[in-house]
């Protein structure tokens, strides 16, 4: 829903990485793996 979308936009960047929660190896790999054909 737009609200949820709004909420996610505040909490996560467009790659799905949280703005405020510290990341770790697993999570960062997860974020990178979703970012295919970066170029």
């Amino acid at each position: 829903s737009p609200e949820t979308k709004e909420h996610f936009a505040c909490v996560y960047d467009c790659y799905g990485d949280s703005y405020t929660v510290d990341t770790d190896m697993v999570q960062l790999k997860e974020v990178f793996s979703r970012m295919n054909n970066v170029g």
Partner: protein
Amino acid sequence: EMKVIRIHPVSDPHTTYFLQISWQKDLGTGFEVVLSDGKAAWNGRVSKEEISKEAADMEMDLEKYVGELRKVLLFEGGHADTYNFHISKEGMNKDYLQFSYEKNLKDVSFRLGSLMLQEVSSPAEIISKLISHCLDCMAGLEAKNECLQRENETLLSDLNDIQGQLQKCVEAKEKLENELYQRFILVLNEKKAKIRSLNKSLKEAEEMVKKSNQAR
């Protein structure tokens, strides 16, 4: 070129004969034949013309015929027992011996060639040369062996080196990936901490604005 092979003629199966063929470059240009049983020796020659005539008589393509000669006289391509040799000393002239060679297919065999060989007056020299030729071949083969052996060892050590390098490269790749992730996480978490603190400050500032507006 020269090649020595051991034969057991059908006509004299218990005796080992040594057949020495020598030729220039291509067997089809003619060849010398020496036959010996270790005591006596006979020699003869087959000319280029006789080879062509023989092929024509058999209506066989010359190239194919020379290929057959290489198989029967030089043992080329391994010697399935598809070839036989015949020796007969029954001729009028005791100094001559008839030597023939044939190919046997399933139930029929056809003669590939035959020639008269003349007994050599001093077989010792011929036999000595034949043995010398064998020893030279052995020396050549041993030298080739050593060279191949050395090549083998070099290749094996190169292979081990490269395998080591590949192993190192794989490890380096994993190490690089881990290190980069470690660094990325540190920098990223710094930024996230900054965002958290800015969020907190912003929240406080908005609170103050609200209060200040209320107070006013």
